[in-house]
């Protein structure tokens, strides 16, 4: 299939459809609304389930219901909407049904604004709801990667019966780039054995996250932890550029990583040996890769479009001895390449944490 010029939000939506998404429930919120709009036309055309819910809370519970019924189901939202959906994430994790969620992040806290941000890092990787669970979190940096990771998200959701986030900032949602869509997959002929389809010719199925006894709930949690450990060892994805020879490794994901790549050109021209580690999965996180790099005496510069959220994971990975600097922009601002160049100079001189103001 040939490349075409695609807007990020539409690419997410069409990739989901081609991956076999047969039910979508969502609620309008900028900067992801084109995704919902794309689904509102295409899903209906294809005879699949589309519904604009009365709220994000209702949307995620519709998603939960459809997932329990055996659907390959997805929702999408942006930061404040993701916060509202947290109730459902926890139930979905506890009842082990497959769900894909796309989060086109915007600036916060509060109503914040609709500018691009990476301020949901904590929310999606650390506290997507009450109880002990992690969603798988995929973070594309291009429109093509948005497509590829959306398809992967459906596969991982089904394989592990878990919730999978694809998180991108509003810039990726709104930008247009050439990208190639995958071919249309056929829909599954029948629902999975565990799904709610009416107990014809079998004993009833139950989709549930309620375990009243401490023993039984701990047993569930142990099983969930086993699953999460399996995901950690099998599904870690990250990109590295020139890290082996680098004195300074920039750690960044999504749009911040793209800007960092531009900055790296300038730094390389200046003769500075700089590399990039770009987590593609934010959970699981490339802890060991960062640790290994830290053993060879490298400095680190974490660049994020937030106040330093992934920074904590990097610091935990490399330990207290490794020099770690941070540069971030907040509130919907995107770091400029020259700001990252300056931050790299500073990082090599003396580790520092810095935020740039407008």
């Amino acid at each position, binding site marked *: 299939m040939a490349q075409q010029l695609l807007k990020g939000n539409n690419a997410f939506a069409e990739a989901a459809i081609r991956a076999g998404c047969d039910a979508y429930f969502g609620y309008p919120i900028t900067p992801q609304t084109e995704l919902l709009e794309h689904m509102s036309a295409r899903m209906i055309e294809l005879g699949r389930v589309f519904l604009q819910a009365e709220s994000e809370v209702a949307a995620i519970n519709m998603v939960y219901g459809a997932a329990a019924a055996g659907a390959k189901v997805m929702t999408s939202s942006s930061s404040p909407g993701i916060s509202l959906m947290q109730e459902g994430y926890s139930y979905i994790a506890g009842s082990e049904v497959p769900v894909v969620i796309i989060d086109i992040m915007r600036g916060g806290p509060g109503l914040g604004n609709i500018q691009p941000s990476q301020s949901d890092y904590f929310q999606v990787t650390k506290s997507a709801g009450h109880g002990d669970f992690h969603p798988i979190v995929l973070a594309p940096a291009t429109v093509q990667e948005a497509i590829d990771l959306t398809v992967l998200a459906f596969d991982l959701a089904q394989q592990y019966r878990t919730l999978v986030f694809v998180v991108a900032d509003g810039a990726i949602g709104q930008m247009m780039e050439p990208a190639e869509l995958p071919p249309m997959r056929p829909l599954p002929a029948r629902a999975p054995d565990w799904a709610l389809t*009416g107990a014809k010719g079998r004993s009833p199925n139950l989709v549930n996250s309620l375990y009243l006894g401490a023993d039984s709930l701990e047993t569930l949690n142990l099983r969930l932890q086993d699953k999460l450990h399996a995901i950690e060892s099998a599904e870690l994805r990250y990109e590295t550029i020139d890290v082996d020879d680098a004195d300074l490794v920039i750690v960044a994901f999504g749009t911040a990583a793209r800007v960092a790549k531009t900055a790296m050109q300038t730094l390389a021209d200046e003769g500075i040996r700089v590399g990039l580690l770009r987590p593609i999965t934010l959970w699981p996180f490339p802890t060991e890769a960062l640790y290994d790099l830290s053993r060879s005496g490298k400095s680190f510069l974490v660049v994020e479009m937030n106040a330093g959220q992934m920074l904590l994971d990097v610091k935990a990975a490399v330990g207290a001895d490794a020099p770690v600097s941070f540069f971030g922009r907040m509130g919907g601002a995107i770091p400029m390449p020259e700001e990252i160049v300056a931050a790299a100079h500073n990082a090599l001189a003396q580790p520092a944490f810095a935020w740039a103001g407008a």
Partner: protein
Amino acid sequence: MLDTLPLENERLVYARPRTLASRYTHYCPGCTHGTAHRLIAEVLDELGLQDETILVASVGCSVFAYDYFDVDACEAAHGRAPAMATGIKRYHPDKIVFTYQGDGDLASIGAAEIIHVANRGENITTIFINNAIYGMTGGQMAPTSLIGQKTTSSPFGRDTQLAGYPMHMAELLAGIPGTAYSVRRSLHDARHVIQAKKAIKTAFEAQMAGIGFSIVELLSTCPTNWGMTPGDSCDWVRDQMVPVYPLGDFKVADELQQARGRSKR
């Protein structure tokens, strides 16, 4: 069980419905949740829907409803049963989907979801248990608690200045175009139980006919949290609740009336 088979020269008049699971319920003695469960199970038996039905249980005393029906089931977050039921029904439009919700779940935390499920005319059925109190959490004020009713969170009686008025959900939902059937019945004596069962059957028939949202509000007892015997609780429903929550049909869609007329002929 052998002792539930008729002897020679006897016929069976009433037996426990098949759709009701054999598990013992956790409900308090005399709690009419059990009665409502049994009526639903009888209706599903009579309509032959057991293996076509998906139950969405809610949060409250009926949180374990999925243990008490031999049907496919799931458990929704507090108030979200209508949303979860929507997701299921949209994916399986040929299945029968019903929610079973109490007054805190449906009329308070889930007020938005129930209104919108009705407004979309979702072809689902809701059985709404109104016992004017939060049962599972230990007897707090519900949106349907009566004016002056003492609960553990309205110790001086429900004061309308402080806590508003009893919510009339069956009437409210009847005013929504997507609602095909909205009625209120009571479970306080045998005659009313029989009427309640007829309404439950009509509600499921509305779903089978695909004509929109159907809800049966059932006035029910909570002997434990009301601090009364089961018998006195039934009297309290009759004497205190029914005057506030009149029994009756608030919406019966034309299609449903025609269908009922046909079945009568």
